[in-house]
């Protein structure tokens, strides 16, 4: 409700109140940098709402609104159609939500938006739990990870968000990682050029919630990809592509042991997780071959 006066380089102000080592901040700056100022953003409550601002201040130079946790995709739909009704086909409409706001409470409105084939870019930054409310488990929390609502480790696997997007047969869905910014930026550009809904699922390690040294965010994110815990892929016009396919997966042990949230795991748990990660990766390769 307040005008933006402060000057900053780029579309995001300097000095936001994200935690030290927050992957989300880097993702947010890069996404907005690629999309440019002819963009309207919808942010739900959550970590990304740090950019919505507080009181009289906002951290973004583009117009935006902080709507409800479950309706990011719905609000994007409304904005896009409102613009279209006025003949504006150029402005990009971006939803920027976390995993809880996407795969849990926001899944219905996201599904509706994708099914209707709205031209909206939906970014889910995934820090694998409800971090803003204090590290509660979400349906994107990986198997075995401890959160404040899965203290003994999450007993079930995570949801496959790009798989859900692909099931809607949207023109473009992809995963990305903060450790591979060139790849991430390329995918944001592709999303912008997509004529229809696009979904980007971006891995966003969280030192606060995952309990690792804030200096190690990029290393952790890279390790997730190299171990096959996070698969970089694209679903484009009905075809799956695995980006940077790995000849051999690194063992998951080092990745897991670097994070306090996996402290509960015994060696045999890690061995089981290793099997699960390898199987999942192998199945993914098979899926990509079926194109």
């Amino acid at each position, binding site marked *: 409700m307040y005008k933006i006066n402060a000057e900053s380089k780029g579309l995001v102000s300097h000095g936001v109140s994200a935690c030290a080592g927050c992957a989300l901040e880097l993702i947010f700056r890069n996404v907005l940098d690629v999309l440019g100022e002819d963009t309207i953003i919808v942010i739900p409550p959550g970590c990304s709402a740090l950019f919505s601002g*507080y009181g009289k201040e906002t951290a973004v*130079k583009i117009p935006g609104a*902080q709507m409800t946790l479950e309706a990011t995709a719905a609000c994007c739909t409304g904005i896009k159609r409102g613009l279209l009704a006025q003949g504006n086909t150029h402005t990009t409409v971006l939803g920027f939500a976390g995993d809880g706001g996407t795969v849990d409470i926001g899944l219905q409105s996201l599904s509706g938006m994708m099914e209707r084939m709205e031209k909206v870019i939906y970014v889910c930054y995934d820090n694998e739990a409800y971090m803003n409310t204090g590290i509660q488990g979400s349906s994107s929390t990986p198997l075995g990870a401890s959160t404040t609502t899965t203290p003994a480790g999450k007993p079930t696997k995570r949801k496959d968000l790009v798989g859900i997007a692909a099931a809607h047969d949207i023109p473009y869905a992809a995963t990305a990682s903060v450790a591979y910014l060139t790849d991430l930026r390329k995918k944001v550009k592709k999303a912008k050029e997509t004529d229809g809904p696009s979904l980007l699922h971006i891995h966003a390690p969280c030192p606060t919630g995952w309990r690792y040294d804030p200096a190690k965010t990029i290393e952790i994110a890279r390790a997730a990809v190299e171990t096959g815990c996070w698969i970089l892929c694209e679903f484009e016009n009905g075809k799956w592509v695995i980006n940077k396919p790995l000849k051999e997966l690194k063992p998951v042990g080092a990745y897991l042991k670097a994070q306090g949230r996996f402290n509960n795991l015994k060696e045999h748990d890690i061995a089981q997780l290793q099997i699960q990660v390898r199987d999942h990766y192998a199945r993914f390769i098979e899926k990509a071959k079926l194109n």
Partner: protein
Amino acid sequence: MTYKMLDGNGAAVEAMKLARVKVVSAYPITPQSSIAEKLSELVAKGELDAEYIRVESEHTAMSAAAAAQLTGVRAATATSSVGLALMSEVVGLAAGCRVPIVMPVVNRALVAPWSLWCDHSDAMSVRDSGWLQFYCQNVQDVLDLMIMAYKIAEHEKVLLPAMVCLDGFFLSHSMQKVEVYDQKLVDQFIGEYIPKNTYLNTEDPMFICDLTPPEDFTELKYQQKVAMDNAVDVIAEVQDEFYRIFGRKSSIIEEYMTEDADAVLVALGSMSGTAKHVANEMRKRGLRVGVLKIVVYRPFPFKQIREALKAKKVVGVFDRSAGLGAQGGPVWTEVCAALRGLDIDIRGYVGGLGGRDVPETTIEKIFNELLDIYKGKRILHTNWIDVKDNAMEIREVLKVV
């Protein structure tokens, strides 16, 4: 003059078309569904130049409509009952973001148990959410109040969303002869939509609805309160202007034969037509009864009600929602507050729930009780006016022991 045969839902659609809504976002629910259908038909035929969003829930319906309106167009949605309950989070959001959206609410009971039929528990559940609320007596009211609601809601001193409440089936599916207005006159009356205060525009960026600290929150709520206060005068002005242009009188409350009445019944919605008819009939028998119809429930017209009823000895209030756990229904509670300090015996009646008709006999029974009280009889009035004698025996599974 042009007349059409329209049901209440048809009249609501006619008003939205006349207001030139540019985005429609609707989800079907009985008895609102024909609004969602008719709007999609108008868009498909090119008779309404709008984007139609076939949403997957009422929560999305209101989210998309409010967001669309923030881009600078009139957006439309409509709901009923549990649909309103589902969207209630976004109902409050739209009000707080000062999006002056106009929404017909086709009144239907809230669950449980399931009912498809009319009462006011849905709209009453969101009565304090920052929306204006208008209640229609007949189908013409639906068209008139909808058109006026756009002008009132969008007034720069108001900027609040508005619900136009029409009783499910009794109005939504009742065909009546309705005067429909000339598009040019409506265009002149409500004008083009110009977003004020909050909008999403890349040429003039702002961020809407961020986290607000305790230092400011009270003041932002106070701004909504002032807007509600302002709405009283704006409504009266708009009703006058509507009368000058379209020739139909409307008022915040309607006093029907109340001046010399010994007993007055306060009512709202379609039952107020029945109440007026019963008053006519009882007057023929020399019984001095009158009706006070509430047209505008939010902002609650406490000054007008106090002025109209200050000299009365006995007043009855008919609530079409149960007000569970409260001393009485919500309308009764607020009428009591409006008349506080005056020596008036105010009796609350609850009835017409879940589609139960409010026939002449029910209204007459109330008037007779009120007249008995006026004559000095010390009686316990029939608080739940139309409850069956065997209420506690029905469907024992739900019986309270």
